[in-house]
């Protein structure tokens, strides 16, 4: 058994074989063409192994006649290389495959969602493009297997330990929870803004998320402990933090709460006396300014409780957001039925790597939720916003947005400074028109700042 496992490990993936093949093709490009059939975009229940094998079999006669070569990738996509003289046969084969999946959304809504079933390449002119695509696919596959291996690797966990500290144990958790009862956490509360971003990348604040910084908490209480190492223990810790957060939110002298706010909470906490007491203390008109963020795993751990509690808090006037959504979770979950007011999609570079089909899928989902109800969170670069805008998302949150806000503050400071200088230099002007001035000439203020 162990032997076959090793053999499997050494066996190169279809993706790697494809890269090799394309490399060798470089010298024999003349008179050949390539088609990529995007079966990866099919709905999962159409993407079962036997479906994919059946699709690949349709190309079998051309392969047997030595006029083509087929690669069936892990994602489900087919790459078929063929000689120009069998172009007609290949087109027929692709049509047949398409017919096989004709009830799938990918095909049914092709025109509407701008999804693509197949992409055709000329081996001579499009060669660099093909090279780029197959390399990217092989890298994704390598990373995937690498990840799976590292999960089993003691070395990897050792490294994590050295970098992040000792994993959280029940005893340490008990000590932390004990300390949390007395500690003043108000200086650990952070806020991060969710903003609209206009075309010139200027952010406008919509609401702010309040949270207790786990990083700072760790440094304050247990610098050598990795609080996130065991997720079940961490989840338990979050229930304690929930209660502390609620009590701080009740005492507005502890932390300044202005504008609309959101905070993360466990569903169990929403049904606790602490939340009911908090709710009693909140002025009725403030409830509409509060967004309660719930994690998707918490929701599915006990759907009955979620449905009940969602109704309860919404009827009180709070809004509900589902946090921690990924592309896959969005595909999996019927968010409409869940009846939340908002969805938070976690930014991930893979959204862009997915190409046009993923983009089209996401755009359609955002449309159904309403772009104003979706927050792209954890944005750490400009790419996140560009992608978000391309699919209709209107709200953004994350480190990059915080930078934009800081930049915007600086810009406004400079404008004010400029206005002051102008005022002292010249006769007083109309206050409203300073923004129409050319922005380029206030750079002089930068060094002084």
């Amino acid at each position, binding site marked *: 058994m162990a032997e076959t496992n090793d053999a499997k490990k050494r066996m190169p993936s279809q993706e790697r074989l494809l890269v090799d093949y394309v490399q060798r093709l470089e010298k024999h490009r003349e008179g050949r063409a390539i088609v990529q059939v995007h079966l990866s975009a099919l709905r999962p229940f159409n993407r079962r192994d036997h479906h994919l094998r059946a699709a690949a079999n349709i190309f079998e006669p051309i392969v047997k006649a030595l006029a083509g070569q087929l690669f069936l990738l892990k994602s489900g996509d087919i790459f078929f290389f063929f000689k120009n003289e069998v172009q007609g046969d290949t087109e027929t084969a692709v049509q047949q495959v398409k017919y096989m999946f004709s009830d799938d959304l990918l095909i049914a809504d092709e025109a509407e969602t701008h999804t693509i079933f197949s992409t055709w390449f000329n081996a001579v002119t499009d060669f660099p493009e093909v090279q780029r695509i197959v390399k990217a696919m092989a890298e994704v596959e390598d990373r995937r297997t690498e990840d799976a291996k590292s999960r089993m690797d003691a070395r990897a966990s050792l490294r994590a330990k050295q970098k992040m500290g000792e994993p959280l144990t029940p005893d340490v958790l008990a000590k932390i929870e004990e300390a949390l009862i007395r500690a003043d956490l108000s200086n650990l509360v952070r806020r991060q803004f969710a903003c609209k971003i206009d075309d010139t990348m200027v952010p406008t604040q919509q609401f702010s998320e309040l949270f207790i910084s786990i990083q700072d908490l760790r440094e304050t209480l247990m610098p050598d402990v990795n609080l996130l190492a065991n997720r*079940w223990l961490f989840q338990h810790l979050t*229930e304690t933090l929930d209660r502390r957060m609620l009590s701080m939110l009740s005492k507005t002298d502890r932390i300044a709460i202005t504008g609309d706010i959101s905070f993360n909470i466990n569903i169990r906490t929403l049904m606790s006396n602490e939340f009911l007491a908090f709710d009693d203390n909140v002025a009725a008109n403030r409830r509409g300014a509060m967004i309660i963020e719930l994690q998707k795993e918490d929701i599915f751990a006990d759907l009955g409780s979620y449905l*009940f509690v969602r109704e309860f808090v919404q*009827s009180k006037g709070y809004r509900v957001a589902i946090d921690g959504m990924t592309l896959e*979770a969005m*595909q999996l979950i019927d968010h409409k039925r869940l009846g939340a007011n908002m969805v938070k999609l976690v930014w991930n570079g893979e959204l862009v790597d997915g190409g046009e089909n993923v983009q089209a899928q996401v755009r359609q989902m955002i449309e159904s939720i309403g772009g104003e109800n979706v927050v792209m969170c954890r944005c750490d670069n400009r790419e996140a916003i560009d992608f978000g805008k391309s699919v209709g998302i209107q709200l953004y949150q994350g480190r990059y947005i915080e930078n934009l806000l800081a930049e915007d503050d600086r810009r406004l400071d400079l404008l004010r400074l400029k206005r002051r200088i102008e005022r002292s230099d010249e006769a007083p002007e109309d206050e409203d028109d300073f923004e129409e001035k050319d922005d380029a000439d206030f750079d002089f203020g930068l060094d002084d700042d």
Partner: protein
Amino acid sequence: MNTGMLPGHMEPQKGEEEMLLQHLGRLRSDAVGAFAVHVHLSDLRPGNRQPRFLGIAKRSFDEFISGHDSILFTMYNADLVLMCRNVPIEDVDPVIEKVKALFSEDPLVQGETGSYEDRFTTWHDLSQPDDFRALSAKIKEQEAAATIKFEKDLDEYKVQLSATDQGTPLAPANLAAIDQTMRSTQIADIIRNQPVYHVIPGKKGAIVFREHFIAMGELKKRVAPNVNLFGSPWLFQYLTETLDRRMLAVMSRRDLGKTTDSISLNLNINTIMSRDFQQFHESLGEHTSQVVIEIQIIDIFSDLSAYHHAHDFLRERGYKVLVDGLSPIAINFFDPSILQADFLKISWGPEFVGEEKEDKIADMRRIVSRAGKHGVILSRVDSEDAVKWGATLGIARFQGYFIDKLVAAVSAKSGAL
């Protein structure tokens, strides 16, 4: 805080039937403008009758009561009776709708308030002698029932208390000690199994596989007789990772090669990627196809990509993957076929019989067929009704006490199984 104690473990509190009857007595002479709304929370599905739900439902009336001439009475069976005088119906409707909305997934609230189909509330115009008598009679009846039920519940509660079943809650402080005990306690003799059975109408069925699990009641007696292990779901999950490792060690020593029977094990995703699993895997040799790994939905949703790694990892090595912990409600909210598991296990509850709306049934039937009929298992089947209910959805594989009896009967008849 009420740390998620099971309803049966709460100390029973008397209802306010008597107070309501006294109130009605005082009202009898002057009932002009008085009316009552009887809210039948006792007819909710059991899952919706949790004390914490009922507490919140009751609180929803607070604001209304402080602003109107009205009183709320709580019956022992969880029903609420709202007594009002000269309150505009338009003011009452919103608060009733609010409470109703809390239970929007419950069949009880399907009828429109005040309509003939409304089973959620009954309205009584107390200035009408007939209505007055009807309510009084109803409450007297409930009072009688409540007295008997209260005594019974109190006895049960005392028995439970003395059995120290409730005990100290599981907490970080006692978790390490319990975990340590679990690592060294003998468990091989408390591993039980329960078959999943393929029912074929008119024919002898077949066992699909046998789920192996540790009998929790027995284990609790051994490792933590005075602790309520289920008080915190997260801390309990933590313990299951230790149990996984113990289970794998025991199962590695059992020789699967001797039979062609299949088994299933419930494991955390973390465990699947651990060295303990690797050792179990090596002990199996070429018998991996006889092993089904059950993964909990809560584990899956907390890290979907980890699930996919584990899924591919298992499938590539010949195992089958089962997604466990689905409720019939859950599959209305997500499409489990995207998880590409070999089996989906849906837990049945008696509240699902005959109460689902036609379009929901149709929805579920579609989900079952999409997930592949062969892959869906209805678990916790404790009656023939459950089997019938599953069959209407196209399900043919079942697990539960009722099935255990069935399998025992079949094997007794055929001599061996």
